[in-house]
């Protein structure tokens, strides 16, 4: 299987394989990536801490469009809010304005009830995916647990002038039209953004849909639930093809479920799906119709030293993303984020710890269900940086090949600040007391890294959903009911 390789290849046999952040693979032609310093840009949503937020406002997915001009968010109440980048053309600090303003809001899914099984179907939006722009309108796919919908978002800026109608609009005309026909006059009007559901792809999933992914051919897409992956054509709603089915004949023997699935960004025949056991399978649809047998399986053998009661749970992959180049895969499990080379199945090429201080707290995290939180991960537009979220409204960005081939990671806290003010980096210590890193003469808030003790972490505030702009260094993070936008300017 040939993989297109845009960058210069390193001799694969000599490639150093990284198990921690101290060494990365040798790619001598890579220019080192500057560690990004994030600055506050915007926050959306009610940031009043005192006022409890409603359950329905919790943001459940964030996604930039392919050109980065739009940002879509879905929430637990089934609503989709689309933001548009500032179109006024103003420049701030030498670059085009990076402000996002509300463009359209609509109710995508409603709560439903399955009478046969006596089960409620939540309206929470699990995922949103943009289609590439083909005409003036934008299209998105949004899904809840059971149904995928295709929405068309179009602008209307012009209307017919009132006096230019040839026939009165209300009365039925019984007689023939007499008079001179005039060509209607079109006048500008206030911009209206309309969202209309174009297709509804339903009744195809018994279990809860966790991911959707649009193919690079922009004609088909897949939807994955816990046990099956279905392939759809965008035009056809009453038919879908099942391409992966891992349901055992006896449900008692169920040991593994599908946690995420994605199409390859360039190859229209490849897709990957990840499982709760920590393995990722690459399938080729040209091979056979039912892709239960994988073409490649990416699995790292478990390190016997770190084995614990919870090893299986923390190995479950919560998110999977192809790199923009299509050569690498990014996977997120509970404690780490890993980069896999598609050519190498035996182990990831890079592994980055996210919040290792939680390793000793797994028991308590299991008791309150936090261990089942599904964090997302993301690439930067140039694939040189990785983004993922953590607890206490902290998030981490990793620059893969920084100075001297050493990857650098920084932890940031998402909180409202002055626009363009740099974000604070934070450190979490396993110690009980807060340590202060005071430089004499400096106040704490001026960049002295104050350490947060692991016991003081707030597990209610977590950044599960993140998105990175396709070309600029702008990131959008969902922190419960708030959307934060940060950029490097």
């Amino acid at each position, binding site marked *: 299987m040939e993989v297109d390789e845009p960058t210069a290849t390193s001799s694969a046999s000599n490639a150093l394989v990284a198990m921690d952040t101290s060494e990365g693979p040798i790619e001598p032609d890579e220019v080192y990536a500057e560690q990004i310093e994030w600055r506050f840009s915007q926050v959306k949503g009610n940031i009043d801490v005192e*006022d*409890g*937020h*409603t*359950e329905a406002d919790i943001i459940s997915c964030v996604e930039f469009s392919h050109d980065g001009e739009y940002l879509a968010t879905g929430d637990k109440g089934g609503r989709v809010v689309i933001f548009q980048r500032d179109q006024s053309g103003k420049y701030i600090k030498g670059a085009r304005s990076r402000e996002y303003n509300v463009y359209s809001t609509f109710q995508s899914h409603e709560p439903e*009830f399955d*009478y046969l*099984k*006596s*089960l*409620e*179907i*939540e309206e929470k939006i699990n995922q949103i995916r943009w289609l590439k722009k083909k005409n003036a309108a934008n299209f998105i796919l949004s899904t809840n647990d059971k149904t995928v919908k295709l929405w068309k978002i179009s602008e209307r800026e012009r209307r017919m002038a009132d006096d230019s109608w040839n026939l009165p609009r209300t009365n039925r005309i019984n007689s023939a039209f007499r008079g001179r026909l005039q060509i209607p006059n079109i006048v500008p009007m206030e911009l209206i953004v309309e969202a209309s559901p174009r297709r509804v792809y339903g009744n195809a999933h018994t*279990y*809860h849909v966790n991911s959707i992914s649009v193919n690079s051919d922009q004609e088909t897409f897949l939807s994955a639930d*816990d*046990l099956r992956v279905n392939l759809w054509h965008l035009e056809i709603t009453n038919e879908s093809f099942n391409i992966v089915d891992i349901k055992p004949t006896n*449900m008692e023997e*169920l*040991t*593994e*479920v599908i*946690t995420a699935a994605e199409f390859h960004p360039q190859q229209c025949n490849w897709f990957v799906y990840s499982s*709760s056991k920590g393995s990722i399978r690459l399938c080729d649809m040209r091979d056979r119709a039912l892709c239960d047998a994988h073409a490649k399986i990416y699995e790292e053998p478990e390190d016997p030293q770190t084995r614990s*009661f*919870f090893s*299986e*749970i923390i190995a*479950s992959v919560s998110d999977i993303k192809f790199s923009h180049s299509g050569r690498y895969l990014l996977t997120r499990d509970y404690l780490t984020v890993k980069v896999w080379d598609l050519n190498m199945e035996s182990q990831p090429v890079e592994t980055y710890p996210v919040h290792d201080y939680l390793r000793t707290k797994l*028991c*308590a995290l*299991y*008791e*309150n*269900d*936090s261990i*089942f939180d599904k964090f997302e991960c993301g690439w930067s537009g140039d694939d040189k940086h990785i983004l993922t979220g953590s607890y206490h409204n902290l998030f981490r960005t990793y620059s893969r090949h920084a100075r001297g081939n050493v990857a650098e990671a920084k932890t940031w806290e998402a909180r409202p600040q002055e626009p363009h003010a740099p974000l604070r980096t934070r450190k979490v210590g396993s110690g009980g007391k807060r340590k202060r890193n005071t430089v004499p003469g400096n106040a704490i808030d001026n960049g002295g890294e104050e350490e947060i003790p692991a016991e003081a972490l*707030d*597990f*209610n505030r977590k950044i599960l959903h993140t998105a990175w702009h396709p070309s600029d260094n702008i990131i959008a993070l969902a922190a419960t009911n708030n959307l934060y936008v940060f950029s490097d300017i």
Partner: protein
Amino acid sequence: MSEMEEEDFVPPLPTQHEPTTSAKPLLQSVLSRNLPPKHGNPGKSTMATNTLTPLLWNQFFDEKRELHIGEDVFTVYLKGSRGPIFYLLHGGGYSGLTWACFAKSLCDQIECRIVAPDLRGHGASHSEDEEDLSVSRQVRDIADIFDKLFEKDQGDVSVCVIGHSMGGALAVHVVHEKVLKANVVGLIVIDVVEGTAMESLSGMVHFLNSRPPTFSSYENAIKFCLKSAMTRNSTAARISMPSQLREITENQLTWRIDLAKTEPHWRGWFEGLSSKFLDCSPPKLLALAGVDRFDRDLTIAQMQGKFQTCLLPKVGHCVQEDSPENLADEIARFAVRFRFATSKVGMVPSVFPERRPF
């Protein structure tokens, strides 16, 4: 070592089936397959306290009121100040405090008022005739209590009646006979089904005799309660068990009510229950601990969609004590779905030690 599985009517059945509620996603159940089951009340048990001291009513309810109705004094536990009323009727041998954990969970989720009386001969209520537990007498008591509490509202209130076991049977009679001067918006019955109940009546006397007649302390009673699996939730046991006992002397506690003496009334509680239940017009929910507890009439009616069922996994007969959060979850959703309650702002998921699990 005798692990006596206590069930009022039916011996417990293995509840390890695929969860039918959306409460626990498939991913979680697959991942936690090989791990020991979580404690019923994780927030409390991860703390070092393993004590089994009794808990007080005021940690769960807002008010404990004594109502004088004729010659009888009924104790009622109240919580909440706004919203629809949830009238909670406990089962045979229990008291209003059996609902303590559940009431707390429910009030966290929806705006509501809770009324949990101690029925005749139970808990802290004292009546002249403590042995007349017939349906007619108890239905009248329940109506009287309600009238006493809400007479000034002139019938302009919404009430959802919830009953467990014997209380469930009473709830059905109360709603069927329309004795409450209010707008009944829901009827919820917990783990009682006519057919299975009638079949197990014969085993009841034997079961009652096999319980220890006295305890030397509240802690011992609570320990017994947990060991014999009357309740699987230690917090619920600590608040509910003491109210099921009364003191003879300082070091001797016995059961508050001699249930064996109420035997003549048992048939009356359950006879015709299924048809009366189906006859009631408000929206109905039947919460069960296991799917095998259905009888023929109810199975047919359920297939016809005449009422909603919810199955709670891993609970014993005393559902509201074993799994108060799950039950509160289900009932809150039922209430919101039928639009007689609104959910509360700020349902924040849990965290370690002190706070409640989601």
